[in-house]
């Protein structure tokens, strides 16, 4: 069994003090990933001497609209995200993605910040958050810095979070008029499934029915979630009335393989991601036509 000292606090300042004072500190929030890793004695788990429980820091549980964005505290649970009207009304894509996470028990305990910091290639919230151009605020005793979520993620289960830092805010800019979002996920079963493949699509359809500012971020497709610029470029400028979905599907499949190379899962994922991008675009086109 792992041996460590348990630290817990309800105050954010005290958490920063602990992180400053001690080294080899592992942060614990909802525990829905970490306690599984501990139980499995996962090789991904770095050695730690202290476990710092931050779950009860109420200052990190906010959801507030500020200017043209919504700021979310990292300790907001998936259940809360799903039920919060302000999230439902502005970022339905996040609600749809959060609903696919684990089970009621997991959603009640697991946190948005945990999903981000854990950096799993299959993290359900990462593709929609990247597609929404979310930013993360990292704070330590020495100060704050803000990074885009996309640059924060550096590899599978790897991020730019430093040992003395805490994720303290997720900031999502509001989408203006004309924006549409869609989330697709394929798992082995409906509940409790780790995404085999997912895809978040955010795009604007202008008054001439042309796609603009398209953002395509698949999950479980690449070593860590990242946007697909070639696919985005291929969609931008096309009309919802004559976009060639087969062509876009091919571009997205090829873009995935250009990042991952041919892998054991490629024969499955290549045609499947083609279907996901096609479905996502079809759903958005249908919705846009109704709004015409």
């Amino acid at each position, binding site marked *: 069994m792992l041996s460590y000292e348990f630290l817990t606090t309800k105050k954010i300042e005290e958490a920063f003090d602990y992180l400053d004072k001690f080294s080899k500190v592992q942060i614990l929030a909802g525990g829905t990933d970490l306690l599984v890793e501990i139980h499995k004695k996962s090789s991904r788990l770095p050695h730690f001497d202290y476990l710092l429980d931050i779950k009860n820091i109420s200052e990190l549980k906010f959801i507030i609209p500020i200017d043209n964005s919504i700021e979310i505290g990292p300790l907001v649970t998936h259940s809360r995200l799903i039920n919060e009207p302000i999230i439902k009304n502005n970022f339905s894509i996040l609600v749809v993605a959060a609903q696919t996470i684990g*089970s009621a028990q997991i959603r009640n305990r697991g946190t948005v910040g945990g999903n981000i910091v854990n950096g799993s290639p299959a993290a359900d919230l990462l593709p929609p958050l990247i597609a929404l151009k979310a930013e993360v605020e990292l704070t330590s005793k020495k100060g704050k810095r803000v990074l885009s979520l996309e640059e924060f993620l550096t590899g599978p289960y790897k991020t730019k979070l430093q040992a003395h830092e805490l994720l303290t805010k997720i900031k999502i800019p509001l989408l203006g008029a004309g924006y549409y979002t869609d989330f697709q996920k394929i798992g082995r079963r409906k509940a*409790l499934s780790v995404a085999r493949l997912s895809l978040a699509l955010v795009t604007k359809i202008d008054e001439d029915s042309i796609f603009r500012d398209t953002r395509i971020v698949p999950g479980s497709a690449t070593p860590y979630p990242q946007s697909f610029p070639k696919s985005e470029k291929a969609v931008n400028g096309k009309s919802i009335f004559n976009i060639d979905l087969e062509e876009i599907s091919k571009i997205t499949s090829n873009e995935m393989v250009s990042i991952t190379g041919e892998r054991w899962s490629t024969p499955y994922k290549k045609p499947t991601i083609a279907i996901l991008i096609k479905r996502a675009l079809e759903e958005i086109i249908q919705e846009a036509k109704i709004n015409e």
Partner: protein
Amino acid sequence: MSKITVTFIVNGKEVTLKVRPQERLVDTLREQLKLTGTKEGCSIGECGACTVILDGKAVSSCLILTGQIEGSEVLTIEGLEVDGKLDSLQQAFIDHHAVQCGFCTPGMLMSAKALLIHNPRPSREEIKTALEGNLCRCTGYEQIIEAIESVTKN
């Protein structure tokens, strides 16, 4: 490694315990408090056998360290019965033969109870969603859903 002193409420009674840094809520309930109605199945939050209600919400007690729940309120299967009378959900599980081997039953009941606390008239789909984290290898779920529906429709 030093032990942690934690005070919380279990089934309406306040307890103060010393727990190990690695001690999970399921360990404390079963080993220290001898509340063995809560079962441990998969230990990784997938089977739901260890489900308890923490501050009004269904959670997997295998994924919570007891050190994390200072000041919280825990309801376990032992807390459903009041003054010798079974909770209506418990009685419904018996009446509808929703129990076979029984290992999943406490977790199923706690997930169902958590649902009804917030939503006394759930739809069939809402019942299924509330139970999606609880595996049963015997009943095929049908009788369990019927049992819960029988309570919500009365």
